[in-house]
């Protein structure tokens, strides 16, 4: 009897969702277009960095250097005077300013090891941090070629044979796609269940359910399985058709294991959705609450930047968030091909967090109903 109630109420949720075009569009968008565009738009490490050159040498080599900076890594360099340099950097117009001193070519040929000065606006984090290396290697290449024949080539005695495992090209789109899938899973699990509960409350139908032989436990579980199923199915389809198909990201591990992890994450997140809906009470308040909850969950879970770079206290706090464990599991399974023997601690953690959230939300939910 109880299982039948949970089933019928869940079917009712699915029918309700089928009649809500806004949520349907949100689901489709979150698992297709959002992931595709975010992954395709994921910039290369350096993208059109603005560079200016103060050419005090005006020699063949300085012209050669200036012509070596071009899109997509750099915008074509602007030739400026010495005194413009500071004001342009102050105004944030250039990230790099390269100063080629007078007599640079002469000194270079004479082997006097002249000095180039590279000013980097270090407030431009993304470009400054990696761009310096690019500039250096471009300069070495151009100057090396210019000097070709003048000096013998020297290879270092000890080579460093660097290889990236799991993503040899270090294609950011791969990881971006997966972390976007996780973001969509988190967002939809919370929004769908939360909205379903608030809609019932605003229409007054929840009361109606409670005068029938149906318990709060059944109502809550029905919402969790129905909305969770939708999110799980959508994420599975998305992985197969969008991530593997359209974006051609090779997924190594077992899709089944990933989906098992996703199911546990969704379970925990749907419970969180119910909890937030009981706190908010109305749709607008729910929307505001989401703003304050979704962003931390997404940015601090390790899906955007590595957990190692966060302060320890935040790392510890974020262990209580189910998607932190899910991000770990997803990376291990999908990229490193890890199996159950490796990721069982994550599965266990998500299960425990989910169970705790469920118990907690059920209590709140019972209070909320009255």
């Amino acid at each position: 009897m109880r299982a039948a109630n949970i089933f019928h109420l869940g079917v009712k949720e699915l029918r309700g969702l089928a009649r809500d075009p806004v949520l349907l569009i949100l689901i489709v968008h979150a698992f297709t277009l959002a992931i595709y565009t975010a992954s395709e738009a994921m910039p290369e490490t350096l993208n059109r960095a603005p560079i200016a050159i103060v050419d005090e040498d005006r020699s063949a080599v300085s012209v050669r250097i200036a012509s070596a900076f071009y899109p997509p890594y750099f915008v074509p360099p602007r030739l400026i005077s010495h005194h413009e340099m500071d004001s342009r950097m102050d105004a944030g117009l250039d990230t790099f300013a390269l100063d080629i001193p007078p007599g640079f070519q002469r000194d270079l040929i004479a082997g006097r090891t002249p000095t180039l000065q590279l000013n980097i606006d270090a407030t431009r984090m993304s470009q400054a941090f990696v761009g310096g290396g690019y500039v250096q290697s471009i300069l070495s290449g151009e100057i090396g070629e210019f000097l070709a024949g003048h000096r013998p080539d020297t290879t270092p005695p000890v080579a460093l044979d660097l290889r990236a495992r799991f993503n040899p090209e270090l294609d950011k789109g791969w990881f971006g796609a997966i972390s976007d899938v996780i973001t969509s899973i988190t967002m939809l699990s919370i929004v769908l269940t939360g909205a379903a509960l608030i809609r019932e409350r605003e229409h007054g139908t929840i009361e109606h359910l409670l005068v029938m032989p149906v318990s709060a436990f059944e109502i809550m579980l029905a919402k969790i399985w129905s909305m969770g199923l939708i999110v799980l199915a959508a994420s599975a389809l998305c992985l197969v058709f969008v991530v593997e198909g359209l974006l051609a990201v090779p997924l190594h591990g077992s899709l089944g294991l990933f989906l098992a992890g996703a199911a546990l994450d969704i379970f925990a997140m749907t419970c969180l959705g119910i909890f937030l809906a009981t706190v908010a009470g109305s749709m607008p308040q729910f929307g505001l609450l989401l703003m304050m909850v979704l962003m931390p969950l997404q940015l601090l879970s390790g899906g955007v930047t590595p957990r190692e770079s966060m302060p320890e206290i935040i790392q510890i706090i974020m262990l209580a968030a189910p998607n932190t464990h899910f991000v770990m599991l997803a990376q291990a399974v999908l990229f490193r091909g890890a199996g159950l023997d490796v990721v069982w601690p994550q599965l266990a953690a998500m299960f425990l967090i989910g169970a705790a959230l469920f118990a907690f939300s059920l209590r709140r939910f019972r209070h909320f109903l009255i």
Partner: protein
Amino acid sequence: MTSGTPVKRRVVRLEEVGLSYGGTRALDAVSLDMPAGCMVGLIGPDGVGKSSLLSLIAGARTIQQGRVEVLGGDMARSAHRRGVCSRIAYMPQGLGRNLYPTLSVVENIDFFGRLFGHGGQERERRIAELLDGTGLAPFADRPVAKLSGGMKQKLGLCCALIHDPDLLILDEPTTGIDPLSRRQFWRLIERIRSGRDGMSVIVATAYMEEAARFDWLVAMDEGKVLASGTPADFLRRTDTADLDAAFIALLPAGKRDGHRAVVMPPRPADAAGETAIEADHLSKRFGDFTAVDDVSFRIARGEIFGFLGSNGCGKTTTMKMLTGLLAASGGQARLFGRQIDPRDLTVRRRVGYMSQGFSLYSELTVRQNLELHARLFGMPSSDIAVRVGEAAGRFQLADHMETLPGALPLGIRQRLSLAVATIHKPDILILDEPTSGVDPVARDAFWRILADLSRREGVTIFVSTHFMNEAERCDRIALMHAGKVLVSDTPAAIKAARDAETLDAAFVGYLEEAATAQETPAAAMEPAGHTTHPRPQSRFFAPRRLFAYTRRETLELLRDPIRAALATIGSLILMLVIGYGINMDVDNLSFAVLDHDDTAISRDYVLQLSGSRFFTEKPLLAGYPEMDRRMESGELSLALEIPPGFGRDVARGRTVAIGAWIDGAMPTRAETVRGYIEGMHMTWLAQRAREVYGKAAASGDFKLEVRYRYNPDVRSLDAIVPAVIPMLLLMIPSMLAVLSVVREKELGSIVNFYVTPVTRLEFLIGKQIPYVLVAMMNFLLLTAFAIYVFDVPFTGSFVTFVAAALLYVVVATAMGLVLSTFLNSQIAAIFATALVTMLPASQYSGLIDPVTSLQGFGAFIGRIYPTTHFITIARGTFSKALGFADLAGAFVPLLVAVPVLIGLGAVFLRKQAR
């Protein structure tokens, strides 16, 4: 109120007025004259166009078709509206819909006083007068949300009367109020009218007994006027005894068909036996508020028991306790002798419940609604189809089985609701105001079904209602007031006991008796006629009206916990999250070594890494399988393999290669690891070379001197935090500003802006000021947080930064106000604002990539978007040690944006509803 003869003067003239919402026709070619100086009543059920008509007359809604003339001028002309709006008072439908629920009684009236330009003393005097006159004085400091329905209506009246109007428009002012409050309300109106000679009052009402006392009536149905005239005219013309019957007689023939008067057959003689419902000293407390206080009654099987009382008197709470929805705080409730236990689900199978407002699943069809309820009551699936078929027949739903409830008229929805409640053949039906808002024909049809259920099937029916003619049909009724049952008996016995002609009068008697103990009824109200008129305020700009909005907005913000939290600590939380969330500094990367060589040189190489703060060494690797396993689990970000004979080969100068595997699952981290290890490898080589060849070995063809300017330590936080402040100062203040306007639209209080003299600019700027102040407070908090918690050095001119921030938050809130003119629901407002602010602020404004890197549309947005310029100022003052002179160029776009955005807001904001 004598039913006088029609007056020659007219206050309102309508010619061929039409109004449509989307596809539905609310008003259809209405032409009408309303006499001045008397009480005009609009009668008809819900949804016939009464409210639309009143909002047109009040000037709250744009006229689509026809001509509306009020107080001698054309309401389509905005100059006339501005001129007469201080002579009209409009109280829209819904209990306290134009009031502010978190504000107290005094604060509400005070707000309206300010809007009409009264000075401080004048306001105080008028407020005191109105509060005394309405008996609200003891509740002056109570928030509106905690007032009873009757008190809300009185307060609404106070707010409407504060400016001595010549025309008072009341839309269903007494719906949901107890008879005594209703009577008090009408007495109040009468006194006001006697004090202000010539004041016209237009009232919409669903209660015919009230309408019978008006001077002039207009009966409406489906957007058309059925008839107009005095009540006596109505009765004469239709040859009926009361207005209810007259109204039905006036309906077009098609609607009248099938209507029969309800005849309640007497109860069978053997009925008196078993008790179906029993309440025994039942109480319910919520905190310190007692909703139901020691209520006892007994309902026999098959009886129809009516429950009367105002909104909020405890009827619904009592009903919920009887269904097991709520646990009682004291006393007992029994169904068929069995105590109700909310956890005992078997009792619920015997009860059918219909909650207020016919809560049906609007996303399920009629059939699906019926089936779902049948399933939830655990009916065997073989019976369900039969039972659903039966219900469709009995409740005449067969033609609508595949329709969604939302598309059905109220009367059919009401039948569906009853069908759902009876699908499992309950012994007891608990119906909470099942007939509110439904037209009289449908109401009578509904009662015929109830009679049938009770008399033929012996179903016990417990029903609450506001309609006295429905109460008369019950076997017994109970009158509830303020949580207590005042009287419970047969309608006839109650009338006899009070020696009253009507039930209404009898109840007023009981209520008065109960009330004398508590609140003092309204003191004699001095007519407001002798008051000095408000100092004339400019029609176009008055600071008092502007600050009225500022004050009210501030109070409301402070009293809404979630919005206040977002406004104060929301941005701090987000800054903390973003600061750490997009931090690119990587420390403590774990690595392990597979050392096939294990010599002094190989250990020296590893020491380079393990000694740096970037890397943490983990136990040595024993072989490739272990390396695979530990990398798969994510334990190692880097694995090094030092080949056999490494030390020997290096010493001999033979080329050897060290293998390094980086975990590429997370590309940004992998890039950083690669950078670190390459750098360290080079350092190690240079060091070795120096050891072997001496100093000369280190130099190359040229030297590159790299200066990391503004942020010499190359800290992520120093780079991110100054740019995050502008993003947060845009997103949250603009969202709060959008919500401040859209909330009013959604909750209905926007009507006060439509019908009072406040101008668009006063409204917008008045609302903007508190959010600018909140945003500035946020700004200071964020800046302090950046400097003291994130340790970001502040090197430039603080004054410049503060000045720019002030300008910027004005722009941010103004952007919100412009957006708000296009949006109507709060949830859409939240999404739209996030969309419009988040993407440009994070992608196109130089937060990550400089605007000069952008192309196409993004570059265009980036150049004009205010965040771009404020980021330049924030970085300039934080990291680049700049002052105003260096940054003046970035101020110009912000200065231009302020008047442009506020102007756009004023242009797009509508002073009337569409």
